[in-house]
């Protein structure tokens, strides 16, 4: 399972590491601002239509989820009718097995790949490399990550954590690049070296943004054109399709495509969007001769008909990441999952369970900005909260929480103890305070230091609000009486 990574570090350690990398979180912040602004302009231009589109997309996706077995079957049968070779993968390991089998059948040892989260999810690259198969990532950012042996920090622009000179250096060292640090020059170098690889590769591997049940078609959205290269030149093509990618028909596809690029990058449409229905036809010179579709579940069906079924609507646009205040600071690397940000907080435990995720689901302030921006109206922050509830219900929370909350419960529900605590609190805090607040000097006190190491903590007031309010009311009444005289 490769959904989680960097699991040796705790959430706190990963977060610390990301917070200390100013370039990284500033890069994410800039990306958030750019995408947010562009998206906002487009949404505004659509007026009321935007909300209607969202609602329509929601009803369509819900309909598919409610009849998921039917639509999975319909898609599979129609894709087969189009001439695709179907492979069914209830688990990620089944998918890997099928892919290795295809390579073996063709005696192939060289593949190009266009970005696909599903292949990351199953750890495809590692397995293929182990089997002696060369696999090249062809999306610019993914190629940078592969060459640098790094992980994505954003799902749409995954290599933002490297600056231009770091990227130029990576290619100087590994691919003999001898140009400047200018992004344009580096990109054109990539165009040159990757083009050779596209034309030579035996197998093309790609993902699928939406699969159309009625026509058995798969689709791919890219800006760079690497997806098109992958599905034009290699003779054998492998398409990874998640069972949660299905839309019923072409009309629904149009609705999704009106939402996806706008939500993802603030563009009305991406440079390329291809609708693929089977291998090349008679008389066609390019396009794959053989199309293999790996239709994969890998834990998704358990989300259907559960408290997390809303998540099956997700189109992986990244809009929730682009608005999230936590993501802005801890970046994609803080979460330790290939699915980061708000969507990742819901999806990751949904797919891998609660045992190995550290306290990831607490990396959320429950502000709800994600929910408001989600193009398919997933109540993301409610689902994050639901994970927390489940973790506590299943006794998988930190063992110390139970006695702490018991003690706090006792404190708050017992009037004499509460009153004593409140009365004693103020003078004790005063002893430790400077200028009416606990500041960084109080970091020797456990628990308190988590707050005071970065900000001040005002001391308790000596009088209680209720006492003040009572006096205030009395005073008002007195003044009113005075007024009548």
């Amino acid at each position: 399972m490769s959904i989680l990574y960097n699991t040796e570090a705790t959430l706190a350690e990963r977060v610390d590491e990301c917070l200390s990398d100013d370039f990284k979180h500033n890069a994410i912040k800039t990306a958030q601002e750019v995408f947010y602004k562009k998206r906002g302009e487009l949404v505004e231009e659509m007026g009321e239509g935007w909300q209607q589109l969202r609602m329509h997309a929601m009803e369509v996706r819900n309909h598919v989820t409610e009849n998921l077995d039917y639509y999975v079957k319909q898609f599979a049968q129609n894709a087969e009718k189009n001439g695709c070779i179907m492979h069914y993968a209830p688990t990620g390991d089944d998918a890997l097995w099928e892919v290795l089998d295809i390579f073996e059948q063709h005696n192939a040892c060289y593949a190009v790949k266009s970005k696909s989260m599903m292949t990351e999810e199953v750890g495809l690259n590692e397995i293929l490399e182990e089997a002696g198969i060369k696999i090249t990532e062809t999306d610019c950012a993914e190629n940078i990550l592969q060459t640098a042996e790094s992980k994505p920090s954003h799902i749409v622009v995954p290599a933002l954590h490297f600056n231009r000179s770091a990227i130029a250096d990576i290619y100087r060292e590994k691919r003999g690049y001898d140009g400047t640090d200018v992004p344009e020059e580096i990109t054109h170098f990539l165009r040159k070296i990757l083009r050779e690889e596209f034309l030579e590769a035996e197998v093309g591997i790609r993902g699928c943004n939406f699969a159309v049940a009625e026509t058995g078609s798969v689709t791919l959205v890219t800006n760079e054109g690497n997806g098109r290269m992958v599905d034009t030149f290699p003779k054998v093509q492998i398409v990874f399709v998640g069972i949660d990618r299905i839309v019923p028909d072409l009309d629904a596809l149009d609705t999704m495509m009106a939402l996806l690029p706008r939500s993802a990058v603030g563009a009305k449409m991406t440079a390329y969007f291809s609708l693929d229905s089977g291998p090349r036809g008679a008389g066609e010179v390019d396009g794959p001769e053989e199309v293999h579709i790996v239709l994969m579940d890998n834990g998704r069906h358990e989300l259907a008909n559960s408290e997390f079924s809303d998540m099956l609507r997700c189109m992986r646009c990244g809009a929730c990441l682009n608005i999230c205040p936590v993501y802005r600071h801890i970046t994609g690397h803080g979460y330790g999952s290939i699915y980061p940000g708000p969507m990742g907080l819901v999806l990751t435990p949904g797919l891998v369970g609660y045992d190995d995720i550290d306290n990831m689901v607490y990396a959320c302030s429950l502000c709800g900005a994600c929910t408001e921006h989600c193009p398919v109206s997933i109540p993301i922050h409610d689902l994050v909260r639901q994970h927390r509830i489940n973790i506590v219900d299943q006794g998988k929370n930190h063992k110390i929480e139970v006695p702490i909350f018991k003690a706090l419960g006792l404190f708050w529900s017992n009037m004499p103890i509460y009153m004593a605590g409140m009365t004693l609190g103020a003078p004790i805090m005063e002893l430790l305070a400077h200028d009416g607040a606990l500041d960084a000097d109080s970091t020797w006190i456990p628990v308190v230091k988590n707050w005071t190491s970065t900000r001040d903590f005002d001391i308790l007031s000596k009088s209680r609000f209720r006492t003040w309010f009572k006096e205030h009311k009395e005073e008002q009444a007195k003044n009113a009486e005075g007024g009548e005289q």
Partner: protein
Amino acid sequence: MALGNKTLDDLINPISKQLGNAKVADHVDMPEWEFKAQRVTDGKSHDELVSMFEDEAEKIHISVAHCKAADLAACLAKIVGAGVPETGEPCTVVYAADERFRAAGLADALAAESLVTKATEWDETAGEACIEAARVATYGITYATAGIAETATIAQPTCPTCGRAISLLPLCHIAVVDAAAIVPTMGEVMADLAKEEKLPSQVCFISGPSATADIELVRVEGVHGPMYVNYVIVE
């Protein structure tokens, strides 16, 4: 359970079980949708749609030219006759084996351009040679089946006379589209496709030059596909 070789039932049964279905339904009716989205193109006249198509094209760095059907060859020859963009060096061209290009006399018009050193018509019998021609070509010319006003997108199906490589490998892609084929949104194109018995192996929706912002969010045009895109709208 052993790995691999799973059947469709192996995949579907757990889903049915999760949904509480004893078996997969034979048929599911599409519900009456409650919401129907209005689009920015609603209520626009055809002329307005054409100008929206042009405006949107400009925003995403596509050059637009107009011509009458009779002047199509001349219009295309003029664009490629300028040679390689920016440098003005001699160039080569690959174009779809489309009846409309033949009728317009495109081959002769291209041959008359001094800066065009070679023009290749896509030929399904030539196999890999076509792809090689596209790989080295400066210009690839295709005839799109539709233009989408909302997003300045063209729809380009793959067929024996028009391979995928023509709009992908050359430095510049020129897409010809009939003004009459400009529709409001992708929805209309999808509705037309839905009527087809069998869909083409690929319908590619193209909106502008290939681009990336992967390095420090700086937009760079010309990544794996064309660096320049031109539309020629035929009245």
